[in-house]
Structures are given as structure tokens and as C-alpha cells.
């Protein structure tokens, strides 16, 4: 099919494609081509050397003792591994519960209101915002409850989808939490939510809450369609 110029031309073109262009600025057609091919190759590489999920990092007593600032260990279940988040800010607004914003090592942010994950940024298909007031109220008193949970979830293309779930928060009784060498007296609350199109979305979140102050020491929470469940361990509040 390749005509006149034939073989040599094809080689020259192939090298041009491999070079995938260069330019004085980003955002040109050739840059796009370069990025696309880079991404395709990276994906192929990643697939070849897929080693399975990384193990969860075990914090030592010494490391915990040396932690002087608020720290949150996050163990993404699907992706594996662990990250340690720093608290960037705390805010009170006109909704129930204080918001803590935690920053991951890659810059991603988690918005946690009264121990409940209500938003994320930079993870992919992020939770733009959500209303979890009934859950947050139940947790603050370490008791059961029920109510509606509403999410606005990014579709990953600067559009969002609303997801409405109806949730029951059950008190599964006292279950102490061991964090490294520290033991906390906690109550296990389980939140079961059903909703979405044809009630096909089912989410189960678990919280281990200190009864006195309503502090969530450990939890397993749904973080969105792409990232699945995260285990959150409050190393230092």
C-alpha cells in the first residue's frame, strides 16, 4: 500500500513517529501524540510487570512515638500499599461536624467530616461533595442510626453524577482497636447503604469509634467508583 517513496520513506516516518515531535510549548498536536504514545507504552509496561498489590506498611511503636503531628494512615484496598497523610486544615461551617482536610504524599486530598469521608481530590473519579449528616450524627454518639447519603461523584471528565443511597448504621457492639502499640476502647458501627440506578449500588462502611469523644480511630470507607475502599487509621489526632 505504501507507494512511490516506498521503504525509505516509511522508515523516516517511523522514526518521526517515534520521536513524536517536539515543540517550543506544550499543548500542541505533536505533544498530544507524544503523550498518547507514552501513555500507551506505560500501560503496556505496567501490564507486563504487574506484580500484584503492594503490602500494607506496618508502623512501629517507635515511629508512632516520634510522630508529632496529626497523621492518618491510608491503605487503599485495591491498589495496595499505604500512604501517610498530613492534616492541612480543619474547618467548621454551617453543617454538622468539623471537616479535616488530609493531604497525601502525591498531593491528593481527603475531606473527612466527623470521621466520615465526604470528599476527595486528585484520586480519580473523586467525590466532589457529599452529605453524610445522619452517619456523622450516629458516629458522634457512637450509636446506631439511619438516613440518606447523597454523593456528587466526578465521572473523570469534569462532569459529575449524583448518587443517592439510603443507609442504616448498626451498632455491632464494643470492639477494641489496636493501633500499633496503643489500645483504644471503641464501638464498631457498620453503615450499609443501597441506592443508585435499580438499587444496584451497595456500599458497606465500617467505623470503630471512641464512645466518649466520637473520634473514629479506624475505619473502612468507600472512596468512589475507581478507588474502591480505603482503610483509614488515625495514627495521631
Amino acid at each position, binding site marked *: 500500500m505504501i507507494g512511490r517513496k516506498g521503504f525509505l520513506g516509511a522508515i523516516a516516518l517511523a522514526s518521526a513517529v517515534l520521536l513524536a515531535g517536539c515543540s517550543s510549548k506544550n499543548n500542541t*498536536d505533536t505533544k498530544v501524540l507524544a503523550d498518547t504514545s507514552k501513555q*500507551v507504552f506505560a500501560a503496556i509496561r505496567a501490564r507486563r510487570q504487574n506484580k500484584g498489590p503492594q503490602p500494607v506498611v506496618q508502623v512501629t511503636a517507635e515511629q508512632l512515638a516520634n510522630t508529632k503531628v496529626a497523621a492518618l494512615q491510608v491503605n487503599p484496598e485495591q491498589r495496595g500499599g499505604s500512604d501517610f497523610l498530613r492534616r492541612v486544615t480543619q*474547618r467548621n461551617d454551617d453543617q454538622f461536624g468539623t471537616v479535616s482536610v488530609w493531604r497525601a504524599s502525591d498531593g*491528593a486530598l481527603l475531606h473527612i467530616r466527623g470521621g466520615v469521608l465526604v470528599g476527595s481530590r486528585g484520586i480519580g473519579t473523586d467525590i466532589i461533595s457529599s452529605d453524610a449528616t445522619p452517619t456523622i450524627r450516629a458516629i458522634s454518639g457512637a450509636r446506631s442510626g439511619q438516613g440518606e447519603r447523597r454523593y456528587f461523584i466526578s465521572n473523570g471528565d469534569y462532569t459529575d453524577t449524583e448518587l443517592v443511597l439510603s443507609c442504616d448504621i448498626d451498632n455491632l457492639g464494643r470492639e477494641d482497636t489496636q493501633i500499633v502499640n496503643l489500645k483504644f476502647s471503641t464501638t464498631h458501627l457498620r453503615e450499609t447503604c443501597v441506592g443508585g440506578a435499580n438499587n444496584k449500588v451497595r456500599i458497606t462502611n465500617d467505623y470503630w469509634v471512641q464512645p466518649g469523644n466520637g473520634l473514629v480511630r479506624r475505619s473502612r470507607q468507600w472512596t468512589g467508583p475507581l478507588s474502591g475502599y480505603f482503610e483509614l487509621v488515625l495514627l495521631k489526632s
Partner: protein
Amino acid sequence: MQQTIVQKSIRGFAILATFGFAVPALAQDAGPDAVFNIPDRPTLNFYGVTGLIDMPSAEALPDGQFTVGVSNFGGITRSTVTFQASPRLAFSFRYTGIQDLNLAGFETFRDRSFDVRFLLNKERRYLPAVSVGLQDFAGTGIYAGEYIVATKTFQEVGPLPGTFKVSAGLGWGRLGSAGSIGNPFGGTRPEFEQGSSGGEPSFDQWFRGPAAPFAGVEWVINDKFGLKAEYSSDAYTQEVDTSGIFTRRSRFNFGAEYQVSDRVRLGAYYLYGSELGFNAQIQLNPKTPPTPIRTAPAGPVAQRPSRASQPQAWSTDWVVNENAPVILRDVMAPRLESSGLRFEALQVTADSAELRMQNLRYNATSVAIGRAARVMAEVLPPSVETFRIVTVENGLAQSAVTIRRSDLEALEYDAEAAGALLAVTGIGEAAPRLENAIENEEYYPDFAWSLGPYITPSYFDPDEPVRADAGLRFSSEYRPAPGWEIAGSVNLRLTGNVGDSVRVSNSVLPPVRSNAVLYSRGSDVVLNDLYVSRQWKPGNDTYARVTGGYLERMFGGVSGEVLWKPVSSRLALGVEANYAVQRNFSGLGFQDYSVATGHASAYYEFGKGYLGQLDVGRYLAGDFGATFTLSREFRNGWKVGGFFTLTDVSSEDFGEGSFDKGINLTIPVSWFLGSPNKRVVSTTIRPIQRDGGARLNVPGRLYEQVRSGHRNALEQNWSGVWE
């Protein structure tokens, strides 16, 4: 002459990458918890529409779904693209090659056809889905046929797992050629007429002549495997009786299908008692990006100190400092730059500020607005309460978005953060220039260049359905001042066979587009375009452009355009006037042909992403008429449209196809790249490019430049403000 040169060549290449390579590589990004990705993909038949094997079913694809089907049996290859344009309406475009048909002088007969189908009834508990379809309703008619079909789904019949889909229908035309039960709507149907120019809807034939029943069942065993069996009502008269390309021994067809990945399904079949066949089906949905965009997060919105505890921080004394605007600019500009924005101008008073900036990175302008607002909250003194953010696109101020700083601070973690902020945000008109503003003095003059590969494909030559030229392209642009641009690009062809085509123009009109082959033969080094353009806003709602030079590969000249598009208006009106001279096949010279061409245009946003455009005026060949375009634009920037042009050129003079028509496709690069990017790839495919109804390709038309910052676009992606 069956030639369509698709300009903007490199874009075709990128589109190829989307469908071809990116698909399997992306699967790993969709986790098992993908609650929104419940697969919903009815399978396709040999015509690339939802169906059994050779017969259609009544199922509709999910709204917006895009499918590509390639099937082969008995020397017949059909490649079909189908788009579910609305929940009930689907369109298909098909390219067919039939080996050894020996029709119309071609050993291998190649033809293009369009289908349309409509879902009359969605499947309910007792009622089946019912669809009506027109197959090949405007081509040369070899596949012309109509059908009405019903499909009912049964779950887990007896001990058998999976789903059974039972379909039965009645076909006319080709689909009524075997086992006719009569002529329900009367009328006669002319024989397929070889060599006719085709292209016009054959209203008088639809549902006329004999009708025949067809039926079949699909057993979807599980997510991976499926079996199909059908009773066909197609006699293949032309293929079997006239040309003898295969032997038809039976009316029963059987097949097995396997879902290879989320987007790819393959099938093998035994057809008409004699032939083996295969079918490859690819499905994707513009609403589901293969790679979700991961936007580097901005930090939380900076909060001002409390006025009660730190009143001195709220003082407005800073206003008297003459250097304040300069200092603010110098602090803001690099922060904006690192967020993919470019500072253009800033005007500050004690309690309000207007920032003008360019969005260099995000395909949703709302993201740029959100980022700019954060930078303003970080940098501006606490007394500044009102933020006015104006996005500027090539010197054109699109709109002014007014946000109260207190709202920005208060709503970031609100349960409905995006909706609540939108409710208190003003989206209004932007003045052409910002008076008494401090400007970016470093940006102009600006020079940029790029060097990269290009491919110019050419489709549907009957001797070689896909041809292409490829090589290196050097482009550069120089912006001496806001709104001014001097730009050009040169192609160096290294290989290709577009010029090998022997099908040179046979047009009775001035050959304004049909000489593509001669242009390709012209020379290996080609100046694509080289022009000066200036665009500006004569008023708050009006936009203007003047462009002159080598405007495109085939024409040079001057072009002027004025557009009226209020920020919140669904309607826009524009006028464009051009004087164009046809360029030589090689070099910088011109031919004798010149023409005054131009259009009055109306653009309308119907809502839900449907866009209409009407252009009335004079075309390149001097013909008068109008172009009708209807597009569906998804919120993420995917756009699929169809257009046709009717002019005072008769269908005989127009030649094959009878009138100009085609499909436009635009895909945002970020959709498959997974990182923010403003660029889009777009392409226009025509079944045939003739000389009637041809428009000049002027670079930088105004409507698309302006619209991305207007109310509709901002509201559609408003959640991006917080991303």
C-alpha cells in the same frame, strides 16, 4: 471520483490511537468496584447494528453509545459505525466491499450506506421492545431494506443460565426478498439500479413491495459467551443469483460470540448453509472515559483571618500604595502559570477585583475559573470581597464570572458544593477591554513552533478504500499583541499514495474540491497555510475576525466574520464573507479561479447537548444554498454531528451522491489521555467529496472559540470548579 481528503490529518491519527491501541491498555484502570460501569451492550449483527447475525433486533444501544462493527462472509466485508444519538434514535454509516460482484465495472464493488432506526417501544414486563429501521435509505441502494422488529428478553429459562433474547420481525426490500408473505402496503419496488448517482432518500420505496418475516434467538450464557440462531429473510438475489459469489443453501444462520474485553466482542458464524463468517464488535461510550482525568489537586481555598480578631488585616490602606497592582500581578502570575493559566490583566479596588486570564490547560473552562478563584483568594488582601474572573481566548473576553469570596470560603465542603456555589455565582458579559488594568507585559510578543508527524488519509477510492499521505509537519505561530496572530505550517511528505489514484476530477462544476489528487501529486514540500489574523470584540456580545493569506491547502484569500453571541443566549448569529482564489497544485502561486463566498449562520443550543447550525450563502463553486448541521455534544466535549448541504446545483451536475453530506466527530484529547488537556481531535468524513456545497476552510472561526466560556458550557461542567 471517490475521494475524501480529510484535512487536519494528524487528528485522524490520534483518533486511530483511541480506538486501536488505547482500548485494551486501559482496562486495568477500571476497578472491580466500578459501580457505575454496569455493562450494557446489546450485541451487533453483520450490518453493525444491534441484532442477531444478518437480521436486526429491536434493542437500542445505551444512550450515546458508539460502535464499530466489521464483518465478513462470502467475500462480503461490511464496516459500520453506529451512534445511538438519543435513547431511541440511532444512525449508522457503513462501507461495504463485495468481491467479484462485477457490478458497474468494478471487480470489487464498494459502496457506502446510511441507516437510521428508532425504538418505538422500550421493553417492559410483558411488552417486547419494538424498533423500526431504514437500511441504506440514501445510498445507491444495494442494501436498501426496511424492517419492524420486536425483541423480548427472558431470564433463566428452566435450568438454563443466562438471558434469552427472542426477536421476530417483518422486512421489506432486501429484508423481504425471501419467503414473502404478501405486499401489506402495496406498491412496487424497483430493482437495484447499478451506477445510479444515489444519495437521495428513496421515500417512495420505503415499506413498499413484498414483505417477509424473520426471527431469531440470542442466548447470552454469561458475561463472556453467547450463542445466536436466526431465520433470515434475505435472498441475496444480486450476490447469489446474478453474480454467484456464494451459494445459498439454507435460510438458517448460527453463531457463537465471545466478549474479549469490556469493549471488544468477537464472533464466528455459519451462514446460509454454506459460508463461514466472522464479526468483530467494538463498543464504547463517550460518557465513560477509558482513563478518568486526574487533575492535580489545588489546596483548600485560603481563608481570611477573622475580621473581629484581626481588624488590621482587613484594612483598605493598601489601595493607596501605587505599586499594589504590580505587586499583586507579580505574585499572581506565576501561581496562575503553575495552574495552567496565564495572567492577562488585573484591575483591583478596595473591595473587588477583575482578573483576566487565558486557560491553557483545561478542556472545561469551569476548572480554570475554580483555579483562578483559589489564586485570587490566596493573594488578594482580605478587603477584596468580589472576584470577577474573565477567561480570554485569543484576545476575545468570553464572559465575566462573579463570585463572592465569602461564598468561595464557605461552600468548599458543602454537601452540594458545586450547586450551591453556582446558585450564588453571576455569569455575565465581559467588556472588550479592561480599563485601568495592570497587564501582563511579558507575554507579547509570543512565538511558538512545533515539529511532528502528520497523516492525511483519503477514504473510499473504489480502487483502494483507504489511502494516506504521511510525513513531517512544521507549524509556528507568532502573536505580536493580544488578538493578533501570524501562523503557518509546512508539510514534508515522506511517503503516501493519495496521488496514485487515477480518479481525477470529472466534475462539471469548477473543481474546487475534487482536485485533491492533483494537490497530492503537486510536490512533497507544501505550504498548508500561512496567514495573518486579527480578532477582537466590537461590543460586549459581539466578536469579529479578519484573516488573510494562504487560508488552506486549496485556497487563499481574505475572510471576515462577525458573531453575535450573548453569554446566556442559546442563539448565536454570524456573518462571514470571503474572497478566495484557488491555489496552484504546488508552490505559492494561484490558478485563475476566484470566488466571493460567504454565509449567514445561525447557531442554536437546544439543550441536553443538542446543537443546531444553519448556514445560508454562496459556496466555493459559486452555488447558492444552505447547510444544515445537527450535533450532539456530550458534557465532556465529545461531539458527534451530521450535516447536509442543498444548493442550486442539480443532482446530475453534482454527480455521485447527489448532494454534499457527511459526519463530524470531535473527541477531547483528555478523554483518552487521562490528564487535563484543552485540545480536541476532530475529523469530517464524507461518503464522497464533490464540488457542490463546498465551504472554504477558514482557520479560527469564532463560534467555537467563544462558546466554551459561556453560560451553557460553564454550567454543564460546573463541578469542575472544585476539582
